[in-house]
């Protein structure tokens, strides 16, 4: 047994919680970049980022289904679930920071790093000592050995897949199963629509492995092919099209798209202040109130999603409607100049604390406490 292997059900649950945290953590950066694009411009980029973001939402829900299938309780309201941006992600031997930043070439290159396909080469340990020890969250950290992290997100997910297979194999030997979760807690396509792929319930090893592979293939690409088994472009190559200014088409070699041109106007975006915080916005201003209100709405949304993932799947519909409302709130923040910042713009800060979820409108200052 390698120390990177999952050998208990409790460990598997903590990995799946980390997987939810990881999938969720990609959303704020993708959404800030998406909504920073000026209306009517960068239509190709808008579509590409939107589709990737929606697939990340699907992955988050799949992680919740996996956790529910083995008797876990998905909780997106745990303090620290939402990173205080920037946040670290692993990239082989290196670690890099993921920022909340406007649409730009640099931001898309940051997204390419997030989605870069990489697995530890054979012979290289899948667990690597963390290099950076700053104040920011490290995604891909080993749930127990917190000074260690996975070589890549692909390795992290591979550990989950191997753990599922191993633990179910052990259980079967004793005539048992690890898939003891209530099937009524599964989110299915009945509650989740147009979400970047078919959402199936996870009830046994076969459906669990299908779910985890879909997450790996759509996301980190892991295999050396551009298209996944559903004949869809992996996220890395979707973003890569913006850098190359050209769409991939079937048969293309990696890094050499030969399809229709993609027109990109890197300047047609609101210059949102990178990793903007509530503290950057003048206290007491309308803008500060709007930013604090957004964080409250976001905290409420996470609480609603948690409820939906814990036996009330029908609640997802209402949560999604609220998601569309705060989408509008995000665009409002992004289009407002940030006073005293030399021409930068405000944006959603995603500073979410448990207090924010239930707190009344007053006391906006207390929202600056970051979970």
């Amino acid at each position, binding site marked *: 047994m390698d120390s990177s292997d999952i050998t208990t059900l409790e460990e598997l649950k903590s990995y799946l919680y980390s997987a939810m945290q990881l999938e969720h953590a990609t959303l704020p950066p993708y959404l800030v970049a998406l909504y920073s694009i*000026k*209306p*009517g411009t960068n239509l190709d980029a808008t579509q590409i980022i939107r589709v990737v973001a929606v697939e990340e939402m699907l992955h988050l829900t799949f992680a919740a289904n996996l956790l529910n299938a083995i008797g876990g309780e998905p909780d997106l309201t745990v303090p620290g679930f939402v990173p205080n941006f920037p946040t670290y992600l692993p990239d082989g031997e290196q670690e890099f920071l993921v920022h909340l930043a406007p649409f730009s070439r640099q931001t898309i290159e940051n997204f390419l790093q997030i989605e870069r396909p990489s697995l530890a080469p054979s012979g290289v340990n899948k667990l690597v000592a963390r290099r950076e020890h700053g104040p920011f969250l490290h995604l891909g950290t080993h749930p127990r050995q917190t000074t260690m992290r996975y070589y890549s997100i692909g390795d992290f997910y591979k550990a989950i897949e191997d753990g599922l297979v191993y633990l179910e194999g052990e259980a079967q030997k004793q005539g048992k199963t690890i898939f003891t979760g209530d099937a009524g807690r599964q989110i299915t396509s009945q509650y989740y*629509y147009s979400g970047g792929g078919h959402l199936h319930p996870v009830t046994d090893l076969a459906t669990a492995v299908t779910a985890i592979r879909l997450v790996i293939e759509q996301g980190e690409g892991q295999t050396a092919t551009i298209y996944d088994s559903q004949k869809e472009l992996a996220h890395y190559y979707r973003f890569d099209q913006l850098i190359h200014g050209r769409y991939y088409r079937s048969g293309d070699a990696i890094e050499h798209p030969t399809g229709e041109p993609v027109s990109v106007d890197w300047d047609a975006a*609101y210059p949102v202040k990178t990793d903007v915080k509530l503290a950057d916005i003048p206290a007491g201003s*309308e*803008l500060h*109130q*709007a930013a604090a209100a957004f964080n409250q709405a976001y905290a409420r949304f996470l609480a609603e999603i948690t409820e939906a993932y814990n036996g009330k799947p029908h609640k997802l*519909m*209402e949560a*999604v*409607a609220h*998601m*569309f*409302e705060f989408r*509008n709130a995000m*665009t*409002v*923040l992004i*289009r*407002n*100049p940030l006073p005293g910042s030399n021409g930068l713009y405000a944006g959603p800060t995603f500073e979410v604390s448990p207090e924010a979820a239930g707190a009344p409108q007053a006391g906006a200052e207390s929202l600056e406490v970051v979970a």
Partner: protein
Amino acid sequence: MSQLEPFLAFSAEVTAFPIVELQGTGQAESYLQTVEDIVGTQRLDRLLVLYQSLPLATREDIRQARADRLRRDIFGSDELGPIARNIIKLWYSGTWYELPSAWTEAYGPAPQDVTFVVAPSSYVEGLLWTAIGAHPAGAKAPGYASWQWPPHIPPFAGDPAATPR
């Protein structure tokens, strides 16, 4: 000097939407440009200077005096009133409405003064959708089944039914 700041201040008072929301539409610069192009910078400047000279509404009695002056000096003006009303309509619908012919006869010509939608995004960003708790057809989709919940009507300044902002 840019007239954006006084234009936004005037717009916020006459639309009853906060400046943050107006900026949030992303249309402020293009609306200002539209008004300047059609009625001329000098005429708009006069409206905004007049607006800035109104008494500040720090007390209830002054608030009334301010509202009266706004009504009389700007909305009651043959020259500036139609422009002020058009600015409200711009924000609410994203559309510039052709000025009344009496205005053009007295203060024209205004060759660009025809009814038009300022930009595809200005239709989407019209305040009327927010004001009625709806969304523009074909954009800003509110999510499946959202129609089963009551609309969210935002409180606005001076609304007796609303809690103060």
